[in-house]
């Protein structure tokens, strides 16, 4: 088993909340707290969680749009977070990001082929060649460059804009693509098209994806492995099938049970989980999910549970499973 393409260890980011007369820091938003995971070449890692769990911050940390307070991100053995500006520029060719908001992520003053070509221009490609490659890529993502090339962002639909975003991310021939809620802002019918496009592109170009979403259907559809986040921490990781069939962490179970189904036999009277996600400013001590967990025990409040393997490649951070190895004998 070759080394993982991307290694993340102990990534932490706290945002200060300023207040008071002199703007002193009153509290910290613990957006991402000690997140660790690996991404293997060629796979799609899905990161799922509700709003406020730190997914978008994580995406920005991975791409070094935001500097972390602690932790490392290693790409092919190279430390991303401490790379020099020239090394960083080189690394930017390999690591790209597709943004969530198709409306705010395109410069309204640039024709879309220029928006895509800009990345190449930054890295020294001559103007004519950059435009050619941009147009070719637009064609590949489903936008005929002869018809749409000189169009402006406001003339395109949400789905079309997202295709432009994808083209922009791919024009530098990256190895790893982080996609932050790539289809959340689109209509359902368009979502499927864009997801299929992403699958095709991944196969064609031997890409690796880290796809972040709050929508379980999307995660299940494209992911090989899944990582579940809650309030800045990872609570469970495993293959997509394993998590779908036997989710272990109470939060994961609630998530999968919450996905609305069209099947009348799967109706339930009570929602599987109660309450709103608590504030990341002052998370509960110990296991952060304990305030909403139906199985909470006294020790859950003491310290954060460590990761425990429950199956091959399937880990949970929950005290419920600490007994299992012993129970299994």
């Amino acid at each position: 088993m070759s080394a993982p393409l991307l290694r993340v260890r102990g990534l932490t980011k706290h945002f200060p909340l300023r207040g008071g007369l002199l703007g002193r820091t009153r509290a910290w938003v613990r957006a991402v707290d000690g997140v660790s995971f690996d991404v293997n070449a060629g796979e799609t890692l899905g990161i799922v969680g509700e709003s406020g769990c730190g997914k978008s911050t994580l995406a920005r940390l991975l791409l070094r749009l935001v500097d972390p307070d602690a932790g490392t991100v290693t790409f092919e053995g190279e430390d991303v977070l401490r790379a020099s500006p020239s090394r960083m520029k080189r690394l930017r060719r390999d690591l790209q990001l597709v943004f969530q908001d198709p409306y705010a992520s395109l410069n309204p003053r640039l024709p879309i082929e220029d928006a895509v070509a800009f990345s190449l221009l930054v890295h020294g490609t001559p103007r004519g060649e950059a435009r050619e490659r941009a147009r070719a890529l637009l064609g590949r993502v489903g936008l005929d460059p002869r018809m749409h090339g000189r169009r402006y962002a406001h003339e395109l639909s949400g789905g079309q804009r997202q295709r432009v975003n994808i083209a922009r991310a791919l024009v530098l021939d990256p190895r790893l693509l982080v996609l932050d809620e790539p289809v959340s802002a689109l209509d359902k019918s368009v979502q499927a098209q864009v997801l299929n496009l992403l699958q095709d592109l991944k196969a064609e170009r031997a890409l690796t994806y880290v796809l972040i979403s709050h929508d379980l259907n999307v995660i299940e559809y494209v992911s090989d492995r899944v990582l579940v986040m809650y309030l800045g921490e990872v609570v469970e990781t495993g293959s997509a099938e394993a998590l779908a069939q036997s989710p272990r962490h109470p939060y994961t179970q609630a998530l999968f049970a919450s996905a609305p189904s069209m099947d009348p036999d799967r109706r339930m009277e009570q929602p599987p989980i109660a309450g709103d996600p608590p504030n990341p400013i002052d998370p509960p001590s110990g296991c952060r999910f304990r305030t909403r967990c139906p199985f909470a025990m006294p020790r859950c409040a003491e310290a954060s549970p460590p990761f425990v393997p429950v199956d091959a490649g399937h880990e949970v951070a929950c005290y419920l499973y600490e007994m299992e190895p012993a129970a299994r004998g």
Partner: protein
Amino acid sequence: MAPLAGVEAATDAVAAVPAAPMSYWRTVGWRLGRDRTTLAAGGGLLVIVLAALLAPWLAPYDPSAGSIRLRLAWPGTPGHWLGTDEQGRDMLSRLLWGGRMTLVAGLTPVLVAFVVGSALGIAAGFVGRTTSTLIMRTMDIFYAFPSVLLAIAISGALGPGLANTLISLSIVFIPRVVRVAESATVQVKGLEYIAAARVSGAGMGAIVRHHLLANVLGPILVFASTQVSLSIILAAGLSFLGLGVTPPAAEWGLMLNTLRQSIYVNALVPALPGLAIFATSMAFNLLSDGLRDAMEVRG
């Protein structure tokens, strides 16, 4: 009040979107071309500017030459269609020549403020917290003065003359432009296409040049255009107080001052320079209104 009366969106011709894809600036031009009021204002302004520019050829008399015998002649006097002033100088000639002074004194400070203010404002919005605080707090100090007062304070200290007027008015308008520029920059900076440019590996300079400027200069330009009329009124006002252009030069504000005492003798002639200021100021205002409407991003 009829229900939903105020809620109906005004379907102005200006709000329309052209059918074929056009670049943003061409859309602006297209919209301006369909706005009759703005076109009329633009036309009027063109006439005024041309008249001022061509003053040496259009003016029938030397603006400083006058004979006391002919003083305060009423408009319509043969040979002096707009009358003469208190020293017998031809009003038409003085208005034409005066236009050059007033327009220069009015436009130049705004142009200077646009360039300097944009640079400072974009730097304050984009570079970092320390730079931002430094620039914005300095501007706040100038904001402590009402514009008229600041212009008078600086002019009062520097003394009269066209150059000093330009300096003092530039100082009045720069803080205003900086505020608008900083605000627009901060707003654009948070948008995701700027983050996308950073992810592509672009440095600060490339981002400013390719992504920021195009999106920020628009609102700044609209704001600057609204300040021109005030600049003209202030410039003429300074001359009116004896702080701007000095006699015997012709300048509309100065003319208003010297003619003031003569209103008991001839009521019409003293009104003319002010009318010129008013017309020019109004044309600029209508033009800037049209520009602002045309530049609103739709869709």
